[in-house]
């Protein structure tokens, strides 16, 4: 068995090739590389840590079992994202009735956004940041799933529009449109504007967690 250092230097494709030949450790190196991004994707899509963890685990299990079917036509990571998103979709279908987010009432998100910390965060900044993070999460959850997924893949996983199209199984222009539409909805919700006072308001009316 090759040394761990050498294993770390290999590309995803090389590790995939070795995994296909039955080298479990090579696959585990791939797991190590991609478990955090896959978990983050699942967490942002689903909004629950435990579900995200389950999806993450299942993604790698499925990937391992399906290695033979992976022909290298796409990047290994894109393939993983695709598996993870399918599992997320299943999870959403199963849990459709459960509300996803709660946002505390009476918090002016516009103000929060305006108070965005610039550089070194103080304790106060961190609190604001946490609040802002929650509100961004809440706003994202209210987007249609496809818009949300497109934004997540672009903003947090740096996929190109073509990769997003591949992962989501849609035309390139559709991927761009979904993302742009999603951003526009978020703009109405997150950006404080004197011109759109009424558009900020609906943000406070959110379903509450049970």
């Amino acid at each position, binding site marked *: 068995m090759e040394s761990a250092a050498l294993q770390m230097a290999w590309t995803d494709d090389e590790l995939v090739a070795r995994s296909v030949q*039955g080298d*479990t450790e090579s*696959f*585990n190196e791939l*797991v190590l590389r991609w*478990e*955090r991004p896959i*978990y*983050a994707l699942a*967490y*942002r899509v689903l909004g629950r*840590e435990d579900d*995200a*963890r389950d999806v*993450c*685990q299942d993604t*790698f*299990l499925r990937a*391992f079992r399906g290695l033979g079917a992976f022909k290298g036509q796409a990047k290994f990571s894109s393939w993983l994202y695709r598996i993870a998103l399918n599992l997320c979709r299943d999870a959403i279908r199963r849990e459709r009735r459960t509300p996803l987010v709660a946002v505390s009432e009476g918090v002016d998100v516009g103000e929060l*956004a305006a108070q*965005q910390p610039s550089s070194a965060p103080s304790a106060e900044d961190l609190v604001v*940041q946490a609040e*802002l*993070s929650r509100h*961004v*999460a809440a706003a*994202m959850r209210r987007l249609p799933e496809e818009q949300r997924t497109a*934004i997540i893949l*672009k*903003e*947090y996983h740096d996929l*190109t*529009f073509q990769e997003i199209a591949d992962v989501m199984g849609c035309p390139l*222009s559709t991927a*761009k*449109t979904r*993302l*742009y*539409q999603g*951003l*526009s909805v*978020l*703009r109405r919700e*997150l*950006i404080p*504007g004197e011109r759109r006072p009424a558009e900020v308001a609906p943000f406070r009316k959110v379903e509450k967690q049970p």
Partner: protein
Amino acid sequence: MNRHESCHDKVLLASYLYNECSDAERRVIEEHLAGCAACASEVEELRSVRSSLSQWKVPERELGFRIVSRQDERPMPVISRRMWTPPWWLQTAAAVLLFATAAGLAQIEVRYGSDGLVVRTGWSKPIAPAPARVSESAPAEAPWRQELAALEQELRSELSAASAARPTAAASRPASQNEEGLLRRVQALIDQSEQKQRRELAMRLTDVVRDVDIQRRADQMRVQQTFGQLEGQTGIAVRDNRELLDYLVRVSQQR
């Protein structure tokens, strides 16, 4: 591209926003933005949205997934241990033998009688406890008696020497008075000596009792350790079985 097209070409704006457009497309868009306040403001706000999105953090979570192949699932040490694990009856026999040996070493007497199960260490031994205590203290008492006898002898010889010498030294005093005082002093000396000897005896007895106690504790510990090892072996066997069960459950779930 005229103004109208550009305002509605969201696909192009998306590419521009994420730097995925060609230089030519970029020039066209920037020209348009320079002349269209609404679009310029829109792009600015979308950038602000992107900056807000960067605030959305994912909670840290321990993941550490690992794919374990089936032959790896039961690593060598476990397998070899499982292979060497003797059947239960052999284990029981070994345990009995081990216990008997340990009991022998620790001089433990195990007896099952009408009064139930009796376990005795070699130090509290005896079949008849009362005489044993006497015999136990006898060796400690014997030297004391000898020493006392020797002291008495010594004192008596001193006394006789003194009674021989004193009359000349105190010729003026009546002999009977002299002797009486001397006797009292000797008696006092003997009393003191006896007290001293008793203290020594008490100390020696304490030592003996302490030694016995230390030995008894050591024996107890040894016995407990032996039992602990036996329990440990049982625990390992139980754990092995549980691992095997888990494995079987996992495998059956996968199918």
